[in-house]
């Protein structure tokens, strides 16, 4: 047997694949000291003077991943010519090549690759994927079914120093692969027609967007005027290489990294009264609004719009220094709204993080500055996670899902979470987690019920109730005119 023996090459390929996947194979690789080369032998045979090759020895071959969807789109071009070109991001000094079309963010090094139908192209390009027609679909990830139903197996090579080095090739079918990990809990397309509007893309809001993208939500509208700063990086999903970009763009790309078919619309402006006309259609189009801002004016404006447009909103935020946090879900005119919450629990409503210079400036006087407070991402994420769960349940409203069993557990309007018994708070005297079974402790969610204010100025009959309480006939009031 020589290396040119097709059967031996197939045995080597099978053995290498088994090694790479850390599974037993029918053949194993050995270094044949007599022949001074690597050969594949059937499991159980013991060739003389051979050195067994293990998975650790074999961890040196690169992988190349090509988009199956892209290949189908380009199939007519490939069928009509000897080859087509594709761009790949080269990672880790050639250890992995990822098709540039798979996601929104390529890496720093781009390599051109030639994709050919069996016919070898001369001279050999540096990267080459060859598609060989076969009769049946195999189990391997390198099988491709063309638009005309023809079946191909892909092999890939990197040409170096006059030699072709094989690469393990995967034809990635993105959506089926992504859905496979959700199926049974979230069916494939259950969230594909649902739309989420995100207000504020800080640590919590940013995290929630990405988690919903992983769940299969496909329509996102993102509103935030801020840019990612260096100081954000220890908390925000965006990294240091993204500093300076608008957060809506950073998060859009991260969503597309997790769900390439998502439709993401970005709105880099602030929530303010002068923008209400622009925001209203976004609220109207959403199945749920997720509000992660820490400033009250924007929360109250969103609250007003959501009530007027009858859209469920979930609000999440950390307390100061992220010692804990809260989540409020508002079902318009059914459960207490943000204004009801402010009226019923003013101290809790006012307990927010000061996590950015803008937030600090908003509450500071020039002669009494307010510092940005520390807060760990670790302490914000439980709140963001709960916020996402509530949003997910709202997005699933009316759809049959195994998550319906959670609705009894997520029935309260307001939820409280504590990360630590912070001094200076009502929770400083909590017993240790291990000592308590029914007292309040850290690391537990508490669902808290309170009544909607039927005379609420945002969601209730405030005008009539107040007028009646003061003996005022609203129909007879005339506001004086003034030039």
């Amino acid at each position: 047997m020589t290396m040119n023996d097709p059967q031996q090459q197939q045995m080597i390929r099978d053995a290498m694949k088994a090694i790479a996947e850390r599974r037993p194979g029918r053949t194993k690789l050995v270094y044949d000291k007599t022949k001074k080369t690597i050969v594949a032998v059937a499991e159980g045979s013991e060739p003389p003077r051979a050195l067994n090759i293990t998975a650790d020895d074999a961890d040196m071959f690169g992988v190349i991943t090509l988009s199956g969807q892209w290949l189908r789109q380009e199939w007519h071009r490939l069928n009509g010519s000897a080859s087509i070109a594709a761009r790949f991001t080269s990672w880790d000094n050639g250890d992995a090549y990822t098709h540039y079309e798979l996601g929104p963010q390529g890496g720093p090094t781009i390599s051109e690759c030639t994709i050919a139908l069996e016919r070898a192209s001369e001279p050999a390009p540096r990267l080459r994927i060859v598609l060989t027609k076969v009769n049946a679909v195999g189990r391997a990830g390198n099988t491709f079914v063309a638009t005309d139903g023809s079946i191909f197996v892909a092999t890939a090579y990197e040409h170096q120093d006059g030699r072709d080095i094989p690469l393990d090739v995967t034809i990635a079918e993105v959506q089926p692969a992504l859905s496979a990990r959700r199926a049974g809990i979230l069916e494939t397309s259950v969230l594909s027609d649902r739309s989420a509007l995100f207000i504020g893309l800080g640590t919590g809001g940013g995290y929630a967007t990405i988690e919903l993208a992983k769940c299969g939500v496909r329509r996102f509208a993102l509103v935030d005027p801020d840019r990612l700063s260096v100081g954000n990086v220890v908390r925000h999903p965006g990294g240091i290489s993204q500093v300076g970009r608008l957060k809506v763009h950073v998060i859009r790309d991260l969503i597309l990294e997790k769900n390439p078919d998502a439709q993401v619309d970005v709105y880099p402006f602030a929530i303010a009264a002068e923008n209400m006309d622009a925001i209203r259609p976004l609220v109207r189009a959403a199945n749920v609004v997720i509000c992660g801002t820490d400033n009250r004016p924007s929360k109250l404006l969103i609250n007003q719009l959501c009530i007027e447009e009858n859209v469920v909103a979930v609000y999440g935020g950390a307390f100061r220094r992220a010692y804990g946090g809260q989540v409020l879900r508002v079902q318009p005119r059914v459960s207490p709204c943000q204004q009801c919450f402010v009226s019923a629990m003013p101290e809790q409503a006012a307990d927010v993080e000061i996590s950015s210079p803008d937030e600090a400036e908003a509450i500071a006087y020039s002669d009494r500055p307010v510092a940005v407070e520390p807060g760990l991402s670790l302490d914000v994420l439980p709140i963001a996670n709960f916020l996402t769960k509530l949003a997910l349940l709202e997005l699933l409203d009316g759809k049959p899902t195994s998550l319906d069993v959670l609705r009894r557990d997520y029935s309260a309007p307001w939820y409280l979470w504590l990360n630590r018994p912070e001094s200076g708070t009502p929770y400083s005297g909590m017993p240790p987690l291990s000592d308590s079974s029914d007292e309040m402790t850290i690391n537990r969610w508490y669902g808290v019920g309170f009544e909607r204010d039927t005379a609420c100025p945002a969601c209730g009959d405030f005008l009539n109730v107040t007028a009646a309480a003061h003996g005022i006939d609203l129909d007879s009031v005339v506001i004086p005119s003034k030039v």
Partner: protein
Amino acid sequence: MWTSTQRTRLALEHQLLQVHEFTQFSVYHHAAGDTYSASGYASSNAGYKYHLYIPIPAGFPTQRPEMYVTEPNPLLMTGGVQINSLGVSHRMHALTPHACGWVQICHWRDNRWHSGIYLHQVFLKGLIWIEAYEQHISTGRDLADFVRTMAETA
């Protein structure tokens, strides 16, 4: 621009000012630009008059209205320094001054405001600020010494 709910709310606010005997203040409609304001002259215990002016913002009542002292203008501190020169000042409980130089009274900060607060409560804060201002003039002590940072009231 204005919703019917906002117009009705402003009518209610006007009438509440009268009911609460803040009759020196009124809500006004300015037909030319279809805008609203609330204003009136406040008298201090010492007998001085101050004109308080609240332009009603488009987002009212969800959006916090600003309250200015338009007369006297400029408003001076002891020593003759104009209060508006301090900008946002804790010492004098003042927020960003108006382009015309009017002092903006800090009644509720944005992060404490909500739509359950009435204009007569805002004017009441204005009256308290004026009394504290006159104490500042009399004693030279900061206005903040006479009023607490305003806590949340639901």
